[in-house]
């Protein structure tokens, strides 16, 4: 198990170095100068030049790469060009929304998908199964921003149970803050839950047709016991993979939902930073997301080994 974990850590480090190079290269070649963006169309060329010097944009590329990576290693993400405050501060302000939102959406996803998937698999071919398959098909097909708008229309504009968006901050109280995250979390969770429920169902069906299940039944275990002791645990591997991918997606991919509900999350920060050419913010946030994805994948790898001992030897 340890050897397996060390090997995984090694590939994690290599992935991070490659990612930092790719991100820096990609973002530096994007056309558009942050200084001219900030000063607008009436500014004189020498003013733009003064700002470029102030922001350190006139330094050579290699020097800028190393100062950026050096900063990353020591935890200093640099200073935002536009906001003029430390990127780490800006990002952590956004993370207190994005991480809870992603976790909230992921919990909803799992809470919906697990029972639904298991139910559909154990009653394969029944009316329940057909309904679940139909409903999840619809859930996968509906774009989440459209579903979000629909919910705003119903729950915010007509019923007035929720605000149409915005985030009051955690100091307004846990429940108040969670309430503000409810509609966005549901909008994010619905398509993910549909995907996960379908994966859960098919994975469980595969497992249920394995020989060891027949053996388990043959030695006298009830259907329920077989399901809980043998089938579910083995069916979890593909499900875990999907959950790992989904968490990364929910963390990074909430851009549209954050815009629909005007939530000040990480996705919206990146979106704004790209259009304002706040390169340092984009680089650091993308790097952070890559880091999150890689770490989540690492944890998922470890979880595989936990649910399936056969994997520990391989690596």
């Amino acid at each position, binding site marked *: 198990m340890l050897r397996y974990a060390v090997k995984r850590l090694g590939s994690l480090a290599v992935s991070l170095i490659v990612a930092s190079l790719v991100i820096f290269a990609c973002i530096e070649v994007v*056309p*558009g*100068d*942050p200084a*001219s*963006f*900030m*000063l*607008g*169309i*009436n*500014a*004189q060329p020498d*003013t733009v030049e*003064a*700002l470029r*010097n*102030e922001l350190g944009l006139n330094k050579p590329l290699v020097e800028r790469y190393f100062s950026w990576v050096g900063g990353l290693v020591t935890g200093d993400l640099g200073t935002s060009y*536009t*906001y*003029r*405050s430390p990127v780490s501060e*800006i990002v952590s*302000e*956004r993370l207190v929304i994005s991480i809870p939102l992603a976790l909230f959406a992921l919990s909803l996803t799992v809470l919906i998908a697990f029972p639904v998937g298991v139910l559909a698999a154990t009653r394969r071919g029944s009316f329940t199964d057909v309904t679940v398959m139909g409903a999840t098909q619809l859930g996968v097909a509906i774009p989440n921003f459209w579903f979000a*708008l629909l919910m*705003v*229309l119903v729950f*915010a*504009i007509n019923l*007035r149970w929720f*605000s*149409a*968006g*915005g*985030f009051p*901050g955690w100091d307004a109280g846990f429940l108040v803050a969670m309430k503000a995250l409810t509609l966005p979390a549901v909008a994010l969770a619905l398509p993910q839950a549909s995907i996960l429920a379908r994966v859960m169902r098919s994975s469980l069906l595969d497992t249920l047709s394995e020989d060891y299940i027949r053996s388990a039944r043959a030695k006298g275990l009830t259907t329920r016991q077989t399901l809980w002791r043998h089938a579910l645990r083995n069916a979890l591997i593909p499900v875990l993979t999907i959950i790992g991918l989904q968490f990364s997606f929910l963390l990074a991919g909430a851009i549209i939902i954050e*815009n*629909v*509900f*005007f*939530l*000040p*999350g990480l996705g*919206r*920060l990146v979106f*704004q930073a*790209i*259009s*304002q*050419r706040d390169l340092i913010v984009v680089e650091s946030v993308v790097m952070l997301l890559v880091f999150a994805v890689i770490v989540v994948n690492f944890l998922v790898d470890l979880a595989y080994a936990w649910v399936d001992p056969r994997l520990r030897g391989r690596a």
Partner: protein
Amino acid sequence: MKRTLTLTTALALIAGGAWAAKTDVTIGLQLEPPHLDPTSAAAGAIDQVVYSNVFEGLTRFGPDGSVNPGLAESWEISEDGTTYTFKLRSGVKFHDGTDLDAGDVVFSLDRARAEESTNAQKALFAGISGVEAADDTTVKVMLSAPQGNFLFNMAWGDAVIVAPESIENIKTNPIGTGAFTFADWKQGDSITISRNPNYWGDAPALEEATFKFISEPTAAFGAMMAGDIDAFYGYPAPENLAQFEADPRFNVLAGNTEGETILAINNKMEPFDDVKVRKAVSMAIDRQAIIDGAMFGYGTPIGTHFAPHNPDYVDLTANAPFDPAAAKALLAEAGYPDGFSTTLKLPPPSYARRGGEIIAAQLREIGIETEISNLEWAQWLEQAFRGYDYGLTIVSHTEPMDIGIYARPEYYFQYDNADFQTLINDLSVENDPATRSDLLKKAQTIISEDYVNGFLFQLALTSVVDAKLNGIWENAPTQAVDLTGVSWSE
């Protein structure tokens, strides 16, 4: 008995609470400011939050665009027009409790015109040759030449007075002299300002105001309808305005801005270096169709680069009437009987994206094929603005009184006319109002008759406001949401 009394008191309290007028307001804005220093960035969103609310200048704009006394209560102009002596109000305090004195004015103006200044409108200060404090409340500003619009320039958000003590943190903690103090910024979400108890002028009716940033048009609609916000300044989805107009809970304000929306033409690029071609382009355009199609009817046609609500405006729309046949004939005369093809580069705002599609269709009628590309602002600045790599583009120039850009041959439309440049020079040193007016009218006529750009329409400012909220500026003489006069009725 005692119980009844308590109950009555409670009821009275509730009723009393309900009767008192609201003293807080939440205003929706589409763009969030990058930081809060109006003197070092072009972003209009900064001025929208802080202009006149948090920061004040020597002079200030009124709702009608007039220039009024601000921190300077009066001024004297020397005979030759090169020395302005400002008398500052006494007893003005910055929000950190320090007094405003002449030294702060000297610091602010010197900072803006310094070599390493990053003021986006540095040109406003270019004519200043020296600033000195005569005493605590008197400031002398020396100009290298008379400057007719100096008091106007000093009213810009880029010319507000800041204090050296608080300059280091101005971007996140702005300390001004205005009627509101900066209270809180939830980045990505909102900025809150609250009433300044030590304000030198009339106390504002509002105790607290929150600017909430909502960039998505559909989210703006939801927030307004759900009552999350009391007003949306510069409402981003004109297609919903009819619905708000029909709803008694809301008022729709349609005002003027300083935004001349133009189809900019690359004057040095073939075939646009021929005035006949530019004239043909201008005459191929049906302005009203663009206003109706792209702006849902909001906007005023213009025939030159000047705001129609300005008293010196000349209506020159007749110089380029919509006449495709005549335009086609002009093209043939210029040697392009079968038309030609060019690029049409469109920045993100909807006036450009929607307007661009309509203009492309109108130009096709006279044989000009356009290759449309949608650009982000940063790309647009790089390609079109700095690289001159475009044939046509659509931009709204929102700075007030910016006809002077036509005297800059390096400016992105690359219009180089020595007569016009002389005229703008004369204008800048002219103090006599009547002569200034004549020169301004002449300037408008020259660029209109040279068909420098396709002059489309003056951008309208549409805001949706709670019907009980009063005092929100209808027009936008500058990019400001001045809340000093805003109040709730009953």
